[in-house]
């Protein structure tokens, strides 16, 4: 009976989605939550052990490969967009700005969160608190272009600011995922006591070389004329394999599949054939992924968590907004970067969820359970308010630019 009820719920959600996700002239927070798919996290939460228990821990265990595939898919898609000929269109200054922004946000959030978690969890071992703060720092660097794409109709001129914002939100995840790879290699779970530099370097090397090799094999397999169904199996197979291997060795599935995506994207000539396939499979996989994440989520909320959410979102917003003027002078950027511009970067999107989940699944400690709760709540809150923040930042800046 519960299963039938849950099925009905899923259909209802799809029905509401089909009515709400139509092109509108305004982008409301609720509309964006539907559009970004984050609502499916709540559905998963309801289907999980704290709700209907249809996605019970046993079922979730059996479905773990789908979570691994979801992470791999997001990483692969992310890497696939890094095609050299496309990236050459952007100036070096834009890349430098992206790196500076991510580095600054990472260090600021890491420092603030380390101080806060040390105060809030005094009994926990130091290395675990470091790990948690590092995780927050890395998560903070991620943002997504989904909101900008969804709100493109609301941007008056699509001028320099929106062009730059789209670039920065698309690229920022790269630095975060690189950081994730370093963290997973040198802070490998189960933790090693000795030869950490050697072990970490070897793991980092393996997690870079193997996906490059697999990306090349993927290219070789699809180099000749290949039917679409075969390409889909290769795609699923390679992404599954590489993310599964990363999962098995406690490496970052996002990183390895991103590297494979970059390798493949720069070798293949079947982008036009692959994009429809990727897009057709993306949404279903993403929705299933979010439902599973919701079911996996041990929802926790208390004063400590509320404080951590505030510290995380506050320091992150500060990290994106405060240094923009200094960056402009440092890089001699051709146009002003007002503080308001920083509010365009606060939406996390699906990659934020993937980021948080990959950290939680690798470092299976109680603190990481709390981390996941904070991360997911922060992502939902942030994405809920980001359409409004976009309105007061980018839309306003573009209006001024046009006038």
């Amino acid at each position, binding site marked *: 009976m519960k299963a*039938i009820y849950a099925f009905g719920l899923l259909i209802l959600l*799809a029905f509401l989605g089909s009515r709400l996700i139509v092109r509108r002239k305004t982008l409301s927070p609720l509309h964006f939550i539907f559009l970004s798919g984050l609502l499916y996290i709540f559905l998963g939460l309801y289907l999980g052990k704290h709700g209907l228990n249809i996605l019970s821990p046993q079922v979730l265990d059996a479905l773990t*490969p789908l979570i691994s595939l979801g992470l791999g898919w997001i990483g692969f898609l992310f890497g696939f967009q890094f095609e050299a000929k496309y990236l050459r269109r952007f100036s070096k200054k834009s890349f430098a700005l992206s790196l500076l922004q991510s580095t600054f946000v990472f260090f600021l959030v890491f420092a603030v969160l380390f101080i806060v978690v040390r105060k809030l969890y005094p009994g926990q071992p130091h290395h675990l608190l470091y790990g948690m703060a590092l995780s927050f720092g890395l998560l903070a660097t991620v943002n997504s272009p989904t909101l900008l794409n969804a709100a493109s109709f609301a941007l008056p001129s699509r001028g320099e600011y929106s062009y730059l914002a789209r670039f920065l939100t698309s690229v920022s995840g790269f630095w975060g995922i690189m950081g994730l790879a370093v963290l997973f290699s040198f802070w490998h779970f189960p933790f090693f006591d000795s030869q950490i530099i050697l072990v970490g370097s070897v793991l980092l090397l393996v997690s870079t070389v193997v996906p490059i090799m697999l990306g090349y*094999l993927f290219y070789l397999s699809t180099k000749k004329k290949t039917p679409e169904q075969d390409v889909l*199996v290769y795609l*699923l197979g390679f992404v*599954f394999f590489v993310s599964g291997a990363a999962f098995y060795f406690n490496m970052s599935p996002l990183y390895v599949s991103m590297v494979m995506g970059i390798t493949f994207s720069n070798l293949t000539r079947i982008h036009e054939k692959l994009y429809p396939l990727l897009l057709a499979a993306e949404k279903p996989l993403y929705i299933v992924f979010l439902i599973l994440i919701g079911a996996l989520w041990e929802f926790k909320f208390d004063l400590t968590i509320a404080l951590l959410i505030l510290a995380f979102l506050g320091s992150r917003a500060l990290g994106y907004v405060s240094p923009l003027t200094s960056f402009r002078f440092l890089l001699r950027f051709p146009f002003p970067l007002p503080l308001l511009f920083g509010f365009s970067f606060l939406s996390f999107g699906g990659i934020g969820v993937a980021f948080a989940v990959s950290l939680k699944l690798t470092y299976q400690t109680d603190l990481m359970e709390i981390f996941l709760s904070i991360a997911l709540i922060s992502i939902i809150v942030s994405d809920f308010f980001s359409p409004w923040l976009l309105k007061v930042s980018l839309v306003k800046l573009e209006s001024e630019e046009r006038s």
Partner: protein
Amino acid sequence: MITLVVIFLLMLLLKTSAFFPFANPEKGTSFALGFILIFAFLFGKRINRIKLPQITGFILAGILCGPFILKFLSADQVSDLQLFDGLALSLIALTAGGEMAFGRLKAQIRSISALVIFQTLIIIPGFLVFGFLGRKFFPFFSDLTIVQTAAVSLLLGTLATATSPATTIAIITETKSKGKYTDLVLSVAVVKDFIVIVLFALFISLSKPVFSPDQGFDARFFFQILREVGGSVLLGIVVGGGIILYLRYIRREMTVFVLSVAFFTYQISHSYGYHPLLICLVAGFIVENFSPHGDRFIQAIGKTSLPVYVVFFAISGASLDLDALRSSWVLALICVFWRTVLKFFGTYAGASLAKEERGVRLYSWAGFISQAGVSLGLAILVEKTFPEWQGVFLSLVLAIIAINQIIGPVLLQKLLIRVQEVGKKQLSLY
């Protein structure tokens, strides 16, 4: 070929003890599934070059990498992957149901009924004869009384009647076959599944007092299985109706919807003991025949069919119990041979009565050899009902299924090529 070899070597390397300290064996299922997906697919493509069906390659790859040979997939991992197996089976059954257009069935109703009836009427008594003859040669039969031998033979014969609709639809999809033989083989396989389950319910109820004389005729099993079959059909109608409504009013996210149908069907059947295969067959049939959306629905499933087949048949291969095959291969081989002979005569007699052409009479038996899920599920039920048989019956049936599942797809493919119903492009490959 390079990709196949490199992937294989990479897996060998990553599974060596040098990497053990860094690995987390609890998370090995995704890795194993990823490997088997790509390896089985590539292996299937190689097998295809020697003019055998791809799914034979998927099954062989599963056997090779499974818990009995290379152990890339452990027994626990294979068991963890049963959910994917169930999902894949539901999707395959939806496709099979969706292929059963009433208009085409009506034209062949006489042949379908004749083939189903005669196969059943010849194979079950044929196995009764086999059981009595086997009493002299095989210890399993010689330890039984005459009535017990009859009971075991009836169960074995019922299982031998079954043909796997999943394998049939997979071969039809792979070869892009269309035509009279294709429709006939698929329809007979599907209808027989219903008959086999009902007959099985009857025979298992009759067998119970034979082995436990203190018990009378146990109608409980019979009614329980009838309830399961009836419930599955009803549920299939409800699911089919739900799919039609969705296709009419929502239409969005078809892939998520189809996956959800498969998942919830699997969950419901798991919880209440219904048959996911029957539910999905009926649901697919309802959508195809009672709405104008059948084609769109089949298209939505078709988009994911190849990965689904790879996963399903590779896991099926990995699940085949080679220990069982090793322990009872002689008897199993004889059973397979005898079953094939009986299938030939059953098909010939049925086709003759239906006044079918010579080709159907002589060759269509080759389409009914494959065996998989339903036979396996029923054999496990026998084992649970008669624990005193200590796994001997199950081992024998597992061994028979293993052999039939390897030769069945090849024979069906050869049949479809011979009668020239495979797609033009595929015909040039073979």
